[in-house]
Each structure stands twice: as C-alpha cells, then as structure tokens.
C-alpha cells in the first residue's frame, strides 16, 4: 500500500486535565479532499494546530509522507508543504494586500519572479482593485480571501482550511466552494466547516469529531443520514 500523505497515530493533546484531542488515528491519501465536522470544542482546531506545529502533541505521532513531524517547528512543517488558513483570518493586517501575498510568494520564488506570481494571485482571488489597501481595513470576507491567497502562494501540497465559509454570503460561499474544488485538482485539502450546505457542495469523505475523538468516518451522504451524527451535531441544531 502506498504511503499516505498524512497520517496520525494515537494523536493526543491534553491541556491540564482536559483532553482536547484523544487517540486520533487519521489517514489522508495524496490528493484527497476531506471534510472535518463536529460540534464546537470537538478538537478540530486543536487537531489542526498539532498538524502545523503550533502545538506539540502530548502523545502520538503525525506522519507526513511517512516522515515524523510531531515535534517539528511550524516553519519547518510549512516548508515541507502544509499550508493553513486559520479560523480567525491570520494575515499581516498592517501591510497592503500586495505585500501580504508577496511575503508568501517570496518564500519559494526569487524577488524578481515573486512580483509576477503576486499579480497572478491577486487576479485569482479577485483583489486587484484592493491591492494597495491595508488588509486590516478590508471586510472580513475579503480578509479570508487574502489569507487564501497567502496560503496558495506558497504552493503547498496539503492545505488545511479552518471554516473558510464562515461569515460569508451565499454567493461568496458558492465561490469559495468552487475555489476549493479547483484547488483540489492539484492539492490535497482538509476542510473544517459547520455550514452543511458548503459540505454538501464539496465533500466526498467526511470525518466527524466529537469530544476529542473520531466518532465516525464515511461518505458524505451516509454521514448526513447517520443518526449518531444527527444526535451530536445536526440533531442539536434541529432541536434548537
């Protein structure tokens, strides 16, 4: 069997007595698009932080193409080809949109080449008119796009998206779903999202987190029919 792109073995994160993530075994194939769902506090963001080196796991391992990255630094993991768009847009607020993208592009391109890459990316995320504005002055939705542009500009192998559709209008959600599918043609993705419509638009395989553990992993239609998932997640919404 081929080596998976990403694999976690008994991955665990304890904060004091709280088990945020507990014995998670997760496998992602090359080029796969996976959705992660689960109620608030299920451990999805903590899981992402361990994958990107922002948190060091209490136990267990993270393997990227067979290489153990559980204790690697965030910048080393980024250089291996994992990019992340965090839940709250994590951008350079005090700098222009162009400079934001340039900082990302210049990590892999020479200074001269980077400028061309920046122009392409600005066109792709539709922010050419806003290129010279400070990112901190943009609307939430636009800052999300800036962060997506930043992540794409480093040309990663695997992209983690933490709630990419949060706070977006219906059209923006559709545009984002389209972009996610387009990205998936060349890259693997893990997407955390609450918006079930969005999940339906993009997902094939879905992993459900609950209380720090993997509850179930299945094709999207089966997940949406699964009574257990309804109970912990959808049921709660329906009841509310």
């Amino acid at each position, binding site marked *: 069997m081929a080596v998976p792109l990403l694999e976690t073995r008994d991955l665990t994160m304890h904060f004091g007595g709280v088990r945020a993530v507990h014995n998670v075994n997760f496998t992602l194939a090359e080029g796969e698009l996976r959705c992660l769902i689960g109620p608030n506090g299920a451990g999805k963001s903590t899981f992402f932080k361990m994958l990107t080196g922002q948190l060091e796991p209490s136990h267990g391992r993270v393997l990227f193409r067979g290489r153990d990255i559980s204790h690697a630094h965030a910048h080393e993991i980024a250089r291996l080809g994992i*990019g992340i768009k965090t839940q709250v847009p994590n*951008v*350079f607020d005090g700098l222009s949109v162009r400079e934001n993208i340039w900082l990302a592009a210049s990590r892999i391109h020479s200074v001269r080449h980077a400028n061309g890459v920046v122009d392409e990316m600005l066109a792709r995320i539709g922010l050419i008119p806003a290129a010279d504005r400070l990112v901190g002055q943009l609307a939430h939705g636009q800052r999300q796009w800036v962060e997506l542009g930043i992540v794409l500009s480093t040309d990663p192998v695997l992209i983690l998206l933490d709630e990419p559709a949060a706070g977006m209008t219906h059209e923006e959600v559709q545009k984002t779903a389209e972009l996610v599918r387009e990205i998936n043609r060349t890259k693997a993705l893990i997407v955390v999202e609450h918006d079930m419509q969005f999940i339906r638009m993009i997902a094939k395989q879905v992993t459900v987190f609950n209380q720090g553990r993997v509850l179930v992993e299945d094709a999207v239609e089966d997940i949406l029919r699964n009574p257990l998932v309804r109970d912990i997640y959808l049921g709660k919404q329906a009841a509310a």
Partner: protein
Amino acid sequence: MNDRALNVIGLALVGVVGAAFLILTPRFAELDAVLELTVFMIMAILALSLALVWGYGGILCFGQSAFFGLGAYTYAIAMFNIGESTGPLLLAIGLPAAFAALLGYFMFYGRISDVYLGVITLTVTLILFNSVNSTAGPEFHIGVARLGGFNGIPGIPPLNIPGNKAAPVDLEGMFYLATASLLATYFGLRWLLASRFGRIIVGIRENERRAELLGYDPRVYKLATFTVGGALAGFAGCLFANWGAFVSPTIFGLAQSAQIIIWVIVGGRGTLIGPIVGCIGIQWLTTALGANQPSGSDWMTNLMANAPFILGIILVAFVLLVPRGLVPTLGDIGHWLLRLRARPAAPSLKPKQAEEG
C-alpha cells in the same frame, strides 16, 4: 505609484539636505557648534540602531546603550593597546555585534516574550554599568588600558587615517566622518529595509505566527536584526569615544538607555528619519535648557533649567497626544492635505475614478 514617487522624492531630499549640511556646516558654523553637531550626528546613528531593532524588527530593546557602551569601551581599550585605529574600530563594531548575537540567541531561541525581552536587555545594560563602575582600582586593567571604574577612561587617542598612525582625525574631520557615517547608515538601512530581508522582518513584526506558518523562521530573522542593531550601536559608541576622547560607565546607565527610547518614540517608530529628528531635536533642547542657569528667586527660570523635568513632560505629551511619533503624524497630515487639495478638482472630471482612488 504615487507612494513610490513620494519615496524617491523623500530619498533625494534627504540626500541633498544631508550633503549640503555635510559640506556647508564647517564653513559657516563656529567650531563649538560643529563640535556639538558632531555628537548629535553620532547619537543619531545610535537612534537609527534602535529604529531598526524596535521600529522595524518589533524587538523591544531597552538596553541599546549596552552595545553603544561596549563599542566605546572596546575602542578605548583596544586603542591604548594597539595604537593604530583600524583594528580598534573593527573591534568596536565586532565585539558588540557578537555580544548582541549571543544575547539574542538565548532570548529568541528561548522564546522569550516581548515584555521580558525589554526587562532582560535593560538589566544587561545596568549590569554592565555596575560592573564597569566598580573597576576603579589599578588591578582592573586590560593590557595597558586601565578601566578606571567610575572615573572612566580619559585621553582616548583619536581615529587615524587607516594604516597611518601619524595622521589623526581632527575635530572638523570628526564632523565629516560622523555626518557621512550617519548618511551612509541611513541609506544603508533604507536599502536593507527595501530588500527581501527587510520586508520579511516587517512581516514578522506584523504577525509572527503567520510568518512562521509561511515557512519563515522568526528566530533567525530577529537574531540577525538584533545583531545588526548591536553592530551599529557599537560603531556609534566608537565614534562617541573619539568625540570626547573620554568614556565613563554612565554610558551604560539608565538615563542613556532611556534617552534612546525617547528619541524613537518622539520621532516615530516605523520610520528612519523620525528617530534622527527625535534624537537631534531632544538633544538640542537638552543643551538649550542646560544653558539656562537657575538664578535664585525666579521660579520660571528655575523650572526651565530643569531639563529632565521638561523632557519628562515632552515624553508624556507625545505618548498621550502623538503616540505614533512626530514624523508619521506629520506624514498623515501631509497625505490628508494632499487629498483635500486633490478632491475638489477630480469629481467634475471623472467622478467614478475619483471615488475608487
């Protein structure tokens, strides 16, 4: 594009004013004024070192005086031992840089947070102050150079033309050297900040986590910035030891380290010209206030002669009223005025574009 044009105009302006100042001052000013301007230039280099480290690198260094003092002492001690100034000059840059690299290594690789960084750097300079201050006895010497403790080291030989011990730099030459060095430092830093390295350190200042997630190691960049800052401060220290032919432990003291921070706050963080303006302005004011002799009964004159008091008021006023500093605030006002003048004309011609612009 407009910003780029302004940028070029700014650079040219600094170049022209700087060159004119360099050439004309010794011809028209009295020698004592030239002497005073020389020390302003030297201190402005020191201000630039913190402008880089704090203003652009985001590293809160409260002890920039440590590197300044080390540069001055290194030059003095090496000069007495070697006699020819090329080696001592290089040592006065290299040793503070090495010390900054060592200190920075432990701070940045130890992941020490901002506030503690300030505390540690301040503590380091105060430790140096106390250590050097208590070396008054004849047993404290390096080679033939006595450290002198609180008395300091007097009679430091001046720099000479490289390789020629018999050709020392005179007072006027010192002015040329200090001013040219300041201009070189300014343009050098402008170049550095426009380079890939400079843009990345500003990115790290803006959002260290994001820079890390893009694959940049913030520790390396901060260490490099801090080391360059240490080298520059050391160089300024070397010039300072030359200027007065004297160095004493107060160079490491609280007053000195606080002053550097005040220059940068008043002039404006995130600019280079700001700290130069802040440094020269505050020093000029300090000298002017110091000239007021307190004359007994008149409370106003007494007050005006109290330089630390007046400077304190200025600092508080700036922190409260002009928190971004002089130059960025003036820049904002300038931009605002430009837009105000541009606005009435534009809508009648092309209303749509004016809105976008």
